[in-house]
């Protein structure tokens, strides 16, 4: 079989997720859900000097959603909050490096969306319209 889909890097993140767990004193947090698939992630973030000082996630779901969130945590650790909050979906899709159908894109960006919700909550800024409840099939809590 053509296992491009489940590349080693992806499977490695899925089997050995980085930054997995929770933080004792997060500055902000959020959870995200893809009700169609049942994918779930929770993200805790500590902010220091306007940067993401620490990040942890937990959750369950398909390999794509969990590996993508694991990769995301490595991507954003140490980044300025604004930069992380502006990270385009394509960044995470590129990081996964596999072809994704529209349905799987939702799995891929679940973690990113959840992180953005957390960061906006922490900063007290309103969510960008495209992350609003009625604009996407993902749900935030």
């Amino acid at each position, binding site marked *: 079989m053509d296992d491009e889909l489940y590349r080693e890097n992806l499977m490695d993140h899925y089997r050995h997720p980085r930054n997995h767990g929770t933080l004792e004193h997060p500055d902000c947090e959020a959870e995200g859900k893809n*009700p169609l698939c049942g994918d779930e992630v929770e993200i805790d973030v500590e902010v220091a000097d306007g940067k993401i000082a620490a990040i942890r996630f937990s959750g369950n779901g398909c390999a794509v959603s969990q590996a993508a969130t694991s990769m995301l945590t490595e991507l954003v650790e140490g980044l300025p909050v604004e930069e992380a909050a502006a990270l385009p979906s394509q960044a995470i899709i590129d990081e996964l490096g596999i072809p994704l*159908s*529209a*349905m*799987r894109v939702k799995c891929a960006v679940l973690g990113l969306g959840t992180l953005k919700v957390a960061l906006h909550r922490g900063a007290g800024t309103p969510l960008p319209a495209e992350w609003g409840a*009625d604009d*996407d*099939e993902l*749900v935030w809590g």
Partner: protein
Amino acid sequence: MFVSVTGTTAPGIDPTRIRADFPIFGRQVHGQELAYLDSASTSQKPQAMLDAMTGFYSTSNANVHRGVYTLGIESTDAFEAARDAVAQLINAPSRREVIFTRNTTEAINLVAKTVGAERCGPGDVIVSTVLEHHANLVPWQVLAQQTGATLRFLDVDDQGNLQLDELDEIAASGNVRIVAVTHQSNTLGVRPPVEALVRWARTQGALVVLDAAQTVPNRPVDVQALDVDFLAFSGHKTLAPTGIGVLWGREEILAATQPFLTGGEMIRSVALDRTSWNTLPWKFEAGTPAYAEAVGLHAAIDYLQAVGLDAIDAHEHAITEYALGRLGEVPGLGIVGPPDAASRGGVVSFVLDDVHPHDIAEILDRHAVCVRAGHHCTQPLMQRLGHSATVRASFYLYTTTDEVDRLAAGLHDVRKVMGV
């Protein structure tokens, strides 16, 4: 004239060449080629549309929004691409505003039974017109009965021109909530002054529901330019299959409205005691949608746009002008509706002495001329104009002057057979 009505020369539409794309025109009736003059009832279908549907079923068919496998993804993409094509056709601000229904009738019922039921009550007024097809009349009657709102009808003059002189009185009589009006009468071809009605509705804070079943098929329709709140049309009148129609509605209204039918596809999550709804547009599409028909509608839209909706409009106008001339030569024939081709669509209703319209249609069928006879689902309009039935000829992009000539010749024969 911009368009050739002889059916053979440029510029504009050449209906003879267009007919070659429609397999049904290879059919004969009573040994003669079809003169199909009933497109206001339903359109014929181009091969490209039939091929698109068959091809879809033969390569990509799978239920939509569900499968993670290749066929399911292709099927979903094809279905949602059809939505984009509709949004682009009517210049909808967002694809989320395009809801697939079975037909115009279901689209209007959906509005009446959701937005209408939520917004109407005693003291409120719903405004419609005597021009309406039953599909844009009976649902409002039922809504008025169920909510205690008052239903008022704008009258027409003897030629079917909509009268706006009662608007002030209606405005004084209660809160006008909904104005439901046709973009073009399917019986007379007359086009009511929708712009003026929309302006008035805005002063009342009323929502405007536009029945565009007779106009989306044959000319550019732009929901933003029209500034209406809802618009409905049927696939089967736009070269597309039966079983699919469209409701377009303003996103902020639809988003704030409870769903219509419930079940699969339209939910976000279901528990035994509580359900939350999916986002637009799927919130209003319960169960497996007519996704193959959507693929057919997409192909039909592609076909219409390749021909050009402006050109189709011009062709219909020219053919209508031609038909009014030829029909005028038939002794005893009386046009029902405006006598001229200005500001009307490709529909002509008429009577012939006291010959019953059914007899006319049946004799014309012996000439393979297909016209409708009856009340055309507009009984109140017929009653207002003092007819129990009319004969109706209606035209489309494939209509030739030759077909109109055969209609005229057939009518001379009707006179002979019926001894008038």
